[in-house]
């Protein structure tokens, strides 16, 4: 099925998936704007998968832009740096958009800030030489990534250095860069590819160097022809290949992307490493380039603020730790028919109601949906139509898993591979009975984990 793209192993797509309305038009053409530094940032001490970070400075310390204020507490953990110059305040608690209560360090702005064009140049602008990358050895690169506190910016927030530490048993032969951005509405990665192709390419080359990979691939969905063109031009002569993939949700999910671009299947419960692949998002590799070439930590990221419920949809270069509310205000505020605020995209993002929730390293966007977007039909019983089976990108039987979850039957749920579900929401999107499948599966996973602990 499907045709093979010349030169790489995948078929350009994965099996199943759905086609939600793309709605990239809200913010697709909006050039990235630099958000002015806020009066205060709130830096959550848990912004990555893994262990939380721990304070590295005392309250009342005066810090400069980019100074480390919290350090990683374990190997799977990342340090945190302040995006503004200011004074460290006493650590308190904050609620993230995903509902978790975590410790957070407030920093009050004070002193000289990096703003506007200067900030842009610092993050994405200027030259990104790639001719003398040989001066950096693998360890140097990984150390720079770790020191800069880089985590996956696609939303998963897995500490990046962990993926690239040399591993003799499982060598990486393919570095796969994720430029799919398959979530509807979001355009942050798209804008980074258009406006900052050079750091993306340089960062990719750096990761290629660390791993000694034979192949470097950037996967982009075919609904972004301009990004494909810009990156193809920027990648000329580097050995990096641009893989044009079918537009389909969830094409940007790690395992689906690997199948689409390389034809390899990550084993159930395994990691991309098991098939010799490392995957990073385009924003992440740009941050890698910045960390290695310029010695700058991850303090800002590109965030899409979009949807019919926001007055002026934009793509923003925003400091981590700014509140959701400030970004929403910067985009003109909510429209009267705004009905739901989502951190991330509408398929996998978290609905939140607290405007004070801080932006974290993993915040890829804020999607404001209206009553019209949410119009949902009433829930009926499962009619066993099998549509959820037809769309599940992991090839599961969502209705059975959901049913087992509803009856708290851990054994049956496991028989149907509940843990392989990565909660993409395709099944719930398509279900004619409007069953809250993902929600049920989430509860089911908790039941399975609890049963395993007994």
């Amino acid at each position, binding site marked *: 099925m499907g045709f093979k793209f010349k030169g790489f192993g995948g078929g350009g797509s994965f*099996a199943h998936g*759905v086609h*939600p309305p793309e709605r990239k038009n809200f913010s697709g053409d909006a050039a990235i704007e630099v958000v002015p530094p806020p009066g205060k940032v709130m830096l959550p001490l848990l912004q990555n998968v893994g262990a939380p970070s721990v304070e590295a400075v005392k309250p009342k310390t005066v810090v400069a832009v980019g100074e480390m204020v919290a350090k990683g507490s374990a190997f799977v953990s990342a340090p945190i740096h302040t995006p503004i110059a200011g004074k460290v305040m006493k650590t308190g608690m904050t609620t993230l958009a995903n509902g978790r209560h975590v410790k957070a360090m407030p920093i009050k702005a004070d002193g000289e800030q990096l703003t506007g064009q200067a900030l842009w140049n610092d993050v994405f602008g200027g030259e990104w030489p790639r001719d003398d990358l040989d001066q950096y050895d693998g360890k140097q690169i990984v150390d720079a990534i770790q020191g800069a506190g880089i985590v996956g910016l696609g939303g998963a927030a897995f500490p990046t250095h962990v993926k690239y530490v040399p591993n003799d048993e499982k060598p990486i032969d393919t570095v796969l860069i994720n430029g799919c951005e398959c979530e*509807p509405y979001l355009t942050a990665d798209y804008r980074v590819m258009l406006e900052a192709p050079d750091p993306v390419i340089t960062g990719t080359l750096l990761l290629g160097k660390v791993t000694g990979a034979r192949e470097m691939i950037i996967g982009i969905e075919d609904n972004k022809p301009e990004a494909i063109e810009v990156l193809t031009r920027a990648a000329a002569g580097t050995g990096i290949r641009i893989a044009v993939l079918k537009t389909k949700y969830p094409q940007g999910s790690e*395992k*689906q992307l690997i*199948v689409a671009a390389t034809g390899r*299947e*990550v*084993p*159930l419960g395994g990691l991309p490493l098991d098939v010799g692949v490392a995957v990073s998002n385009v924003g992440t590799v740009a941050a890698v380039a910045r960390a290695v070439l310029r010695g700058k930590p991850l303090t800002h990221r590109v965030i899409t603020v979009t949807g019919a419920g926001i007055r002026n949809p934009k793509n923003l270069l925003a400091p981590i730790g700014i509140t959701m509310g400030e970004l929403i205000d910067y985009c003109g505020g909510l429209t009267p028919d*705004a*009905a*739901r*605020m*989502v951190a991330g995209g*509408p*398929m*996998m*993002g*978290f*609905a*939140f*109601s607290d405007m004070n929730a801080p932006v974290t390293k993993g915040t890829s966007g804020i*999607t404001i*949906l209206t009553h019209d*977007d*949410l*119009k*949902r*039909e009433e829930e*009926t*019983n*499962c*009619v*066993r*139509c*099998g*549509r959820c*089976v037809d769309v599940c*990108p*992991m*090839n*599961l*039987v969502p*209705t*059975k898993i959901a049913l087992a979850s509803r009856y708290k039957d851990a054994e049956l749920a496991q028989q*149907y*591979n509940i843990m*392989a579900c990565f*909660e993409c*929401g395709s099944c*719930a*999107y*398509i279900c*004619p*009975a*409007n069953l*809250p499948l993902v*929600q049920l599966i989430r509860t089911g996973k908790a039941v399975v984990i609890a049963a395993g602990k007994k």
Partner: protein
Amino acid sequence: MIHVAPSPHLSNTAQTTRRMMIDVLIGLAPVVGVAVYVFKMYAVIQLATCVVSCLAAEALFTRMRGNKMTLCDFSAAVTGVILALSLPGTAPWYVGVIAAFVAIGIAKAIFGGIGMNLFNPAMVGRAFVMIAFASALGASGYMDAGSAVDAITQATPLTAFKQGGITTPLSALFWGTTNGSLGETSAIACLIGGLYLCLRRTASWEIPTGVIAATVVLGGIGNLVCPGAQWTVLHHLLGGALLFGAFFIATDPVSSPLTPKGKFIFGAGTGAIIMLLRVFSGYPEGVMFAVLLMNAVTPLINRWTIPRPLGGK
């Protein structure tokens, strides 16, 4: 008002349970059209009786069980139409009423309403009246209509062949100008409506494909074993309720398997049983029993066909 709810925050509003049921009604339209054209008032009265009875039964039983009113999802209407189309036009009115109440009350409501039943409600209803009113629905049931309508003064094609060795011309089977249950006579109407359902993905194409594949294979073997047989594979395909059953009865999502592979197995099983019953049993037609039998194995098929997850063994 800002709402908080779990992801995903979008849903495909073009696909709802109600929309699926409306699709089935649209798909049934050509069949209903031919039925009314061939059987005139017999068809109109039977359809009205069954639909009204099914709706009344649904209202009654959901109220009794204290469930939400489910008339608006049109599933009872679909059961009514399919039930009517599976009966002879001449069946007396109380047969339709009783079949409808059995279909909704026994086959559906007792299990917990839409989505919970194991068996196809319309077929359960029909099976009940078939046994209870054998004479009104047996082979002779099709022949006592009097001379009001030409087509139904004869036996059904399958009975005529079984009992008298008379082969109905393929063209009559194709267009539907023969006797039979209301909805089964016209192959072309079933094909048009059925293809619509498959294209809309309201019916899973794997099921009719399985039915037809099994019929072709077994019918083909039959033809090879006794060459010169007058009742050929094509007669098997176009005659009787085979296509109606393949597209509209076997494809009932609730009582058929979940996975594409399971659906094909289900279809092939249905087709195979139809052929066995047609050739070896006393009944001229086997669609109803075939579907009910396969309904019974559906849970097993679901178990056998758990798909291999991505990256799994």
